[in-house]
Structure formats: C-alpha cells, structure tokens
C-alpha cells in the first residue's frame, strides 16, 4: 500500500521539486503526497501545527517540512518547527532547511539544466551551490546566458528536478538526510 507523505512548504514549486526527487528515491506507486503551500515563511510557521494535524486526518503517516533558512539561525529555526509538530503522531518526520532557496538543489546538476533548456554546453556552476546567496536569480541569469530562454521557477523547477541526477543533489547538506528518510519509509511499508 502506498505511503501518504504530508508535505508543508513555502511554495507549490518546492513541493513539485520534492515530489520529483522522491520519485527517484522510491519505487513507482509506493507513495503519494498530501500538501500545503504557505506562500511565505511567516504563514508556514503559523499554520505548521494546524496543517500537520490536518495531514494526519488526511491519512498521512510521515511529514516533510521545507523552510528556507534565509538569514536565520538554523538551530533556532529547526527548534521552532520541531516544537510546532513534536506531539503530532507521525511515524516519521523530517525538516529540510535549504540555506537560501530550494533552487540551490537544482543548480547541483549542470547537465540537468543543459537538458531542460537545450543549452549548447553545460553551464559552469560553483561546486557548492548552497553557498550562492540568491540561487533563484543565479539560475535565472545562467539560463538566460546559456540558452537565451526565460526561466520561470513555477514551471521549470519541476522539469529540472525530473531530469536531475539525485547523487548530485547530495552535495547540498540541507538535502542530504532526505534519501535515508525515504528509505526508512519504504522499508516500513
């Protein structure tokens, strides 16, 4: 039976990216997503608990929360999010905190960008994409530079994620714990 994973994120396209990555980590039809997109970090924090309770009612057994770190202290942010979902009865949960934006994960595989945007050559990208301060703008600029096409995160994030090599994303520390989390879920189902 498919595991129902609850996902709470700031934007819909963050959820789309995570879905594509999960497809690469788990067998087909072994999971489904139930989701909430907050359209901003403040609302995510405020609603995290209520939405988590709702996800339990919708049959979710596991929870993923994605929240950008931006300029905050990682431990403090993690503690706030942990506190809001601590006593809710999920079998497992994980909080992923991209350093600036989730687009840094997409920058980890230049070949995926080349394939998505039909670039003539693979773009040059720093080895540690999570050190790029504004990955969304960086991605937009690099797509324009190499393909003369406009990057629209709401459309293209999902497409990049679908062709991206999951091994490359593991270079991003904020994503690294996720494959083990998915393995645990699949092992228990």
């Amino acid at each position, binding site marked *: 039976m498919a595991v129902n994973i609850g996902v709470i994120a700031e934007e819909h396209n963050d959820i789309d990216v995570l879905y594509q990555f999960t497809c690469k980590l788990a067998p087909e039809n072994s999971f489904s997503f139930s989701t909430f997109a*907050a359209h901003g970090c403040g609302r995510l*924090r405020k609603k995290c608990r209520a939405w988590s309770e709702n996800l339990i009612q919708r049959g979710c057994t596991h929870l993923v929360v994605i929240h950008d770190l931006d300029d905050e202290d990682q431990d403090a942010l993690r503690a706030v999010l942990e506190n809001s979902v601590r006593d809710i009865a999920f079998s497992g949960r994980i909080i992923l905190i991209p350093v600036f934006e989730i687009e840094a994960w997409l920058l980890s595989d230049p070949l995926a960008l080349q394939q998505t945007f039909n670039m003539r050559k693979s773009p040059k990208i720093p080895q540690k994409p999570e050190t790029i301060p504004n990955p969304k703008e960086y991605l937009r600029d690099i797509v324009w530079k190499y393909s003369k*096409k*406009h990057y629209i995160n709401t*459309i293209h994030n999902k497409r990049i994620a679908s062709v991206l090599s999951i091994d490359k994303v593991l270079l991003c520390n904020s994503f690294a714990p996720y494959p083990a989390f998915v393995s645990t879920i699949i092992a228990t189902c």
Partner: protein
Amino acid sequence: MNAILLLRRLTEERPSFYARDEVPTGHCNLKTTLTVDNVNGTLWADIDTYTDDNNTDIVITSDQYWHIKHLTGNNKRVKLPLALARELTRLEDTRFGYYQRHIGVDAVEQISRTVPEPVRDFLGTIARNLAQIRYYSASQFTNPANCPVSFELEKEGKITRAVHLTGHAKFLFDLYNSRKYSKRSGYDQFIDIIGPNGIGLVDEISFNPISTSSVQYSVRIGGTVTERRKQKILVIPQFKIGKNALSPNQLSEGTFKTITLLFYLITESSQLLLIEEPEVCVHHGLLSSILELIKTYSNNKQIVISTHSDFVLDMVQPENVYAVTNIPNEGTKVHHIPKRLSRPELGALREYLQTEGNLGEYWRAGGLE
C-alpha cells in the same frame, strides 16, 4: 494608473494654437518628481482634460513648470511643455510634431537655442520616455467571442480596414507583425514562454495567408471608367491546443487575456509598462507564473501593476507596494507602504511576515490601513 498615463498625455498635448472645441470635463493638479541619471526634476502641472468616447483622458490645456535646480543652478522654475520638449530634441526627425508643423522647424530650433543644453536634454529624455508609456488592461481583451477570426492586409503589409485598430483586432495584427520580425521583436521568446516548453497555454500559433484581389472602379468626367485591381492578403490565425486548432474567438477568456498580457509584456519595448489587474480570470497557479514573469521582465523595464488581489500581494515585498486610497473631498492618495507606516508599525509588519502570515492577509485584516 490614470495619473501616470496623464504624463504620457502631456507629451501628446496639442499646443493652444490648435483650437479645440471640447469643454473640459476634468481638472488636475499634478506634482511629480522624475529622475534621469540621478538628476531629479520636479514637474508642477495644472491640467484641463476632456474624456473622449473611448473613455480616454485628452489634455486640452496645461501649464507646466519644472524645477531642476541641479541643472539650472537656481530655484527659478522653467516653463516648458513636455510636448515641446519632445520636439526640441528630435529636430533631425522627418516626422514633425504640432509645434514644428505650426510655427515651423526654424522657430522650434530658435526656441531650442534659448533653452540651456543640459535642461533641453534632460526634459527631452523625460518626454521621450513618458511618450513610450504603455498600458495593458485585461478589460481591453474581455470576451474573446468579439475577436475577429481573420484580418485583411494589403500586399505592402498595411492593414486595410482601419487606421487605428483597437482591442482584439489590434492584438492579432501586432502578433502577426511581431512574428514577421520574430528575432528582433521578442516573438520567439513569447512563443517559448506560452508554448509547451513554458507555461503550456498553447502548442502553436499559425497564420494562414490567402491571397485575394478586389477590383475598384472609378468614373472620370466624361464617363470614362477605370478599373484598378488591388491585391490583398486574408490572414487566418489559428491557435493549436492539443489536437484542436482554434480560432481566436474560441479561446477561453483567461487564456486569451493571459496570451495578450504576456505578448505585450515580452514584446513591448517601452521602458514603463502599466498593467491593470493581472489576476482577472486567471487561476492561482497560472497567476504565480505570470507574476514571476513580470518580476523577470522588471529587470529590463519599470513595470507598475495595480491589483485588488491579496494573492498578488503575497508574492511581492512591502517595499514594492503603494497603497491607493480614495479620501472624500481630497481625492486619490498614493502612499509608499514603508513610508506610510510608522517605524513601530513597519517593525510589526516585518515581524508578522516572518512569523505569522503573508502581506495579503495582513492587508485583508486591515493591517495596512
């Protein structure tokens, strides 16, 4: 939006020697500061307007004064209409403006020499930029059923039926023209964005040209009849969505409006684009993409959007928001949000956005009042 558009109308103002019969229906005192290369100029304008049958405000008369201390070195105001300023710096142009036509190129050149060069260049730059302001409103493209299914061109490429096309027909003609010069016009980018590689609104747009001809007869004095054959092209546009090839009037309202908005957003070369309520008839998923595109293009040109949507507010920073309020007996006031709020209020807003919610719901709950 109307106040900003009024600045463009000032550049199109007919001088007083072109008498107008219209009775003013509106009066406006406008004060605005414009910046060119870090030099500020403040315009005071006393304007009488007339609203024509198309609901467009036309400037009948105006008094315009400029305060440009940085260039003039004093506090004295310079009296120079924008319409004239526009002509002072395009004397080489072959297309004459009202002033050049009426008082002659030499006279305009003479006036030009009396205005110090930096002031002339400054106001000329402002006038040219204001003249290029473009306005997009979803209401211009409402009800696609009104859209023609074809349009006619002369062999030379000019439209035959009307000089001034508006609304749906103008859009089709602009689209066709833009396609002819696709690399330069941005048409390729437009197709890439609305097509399957982008937001996937349509798969393909095609134009099927059919050559036709008509005969025109004229009778001269003495009864001689002459016959003139005119070659025309009937252009039939088609929008392919999946397996269906649709005429423009078969598109849904939201699809038609989004296509037109994105077409003008991408292909319009003006440096200031005004967009009225992009949220109309569009679901939130598509609206997110439209707003992301507007943000992208705002790197190349200034874009002002008006909205009544809290969803749109959710997607922008408070620094980019101006609140428009109608105050009885005072008129419409526009305030920059960070300046309108006191320091504690602004702090409270930032705290709210960080920990509680979004700008849209803050506004809905009265937090920006």
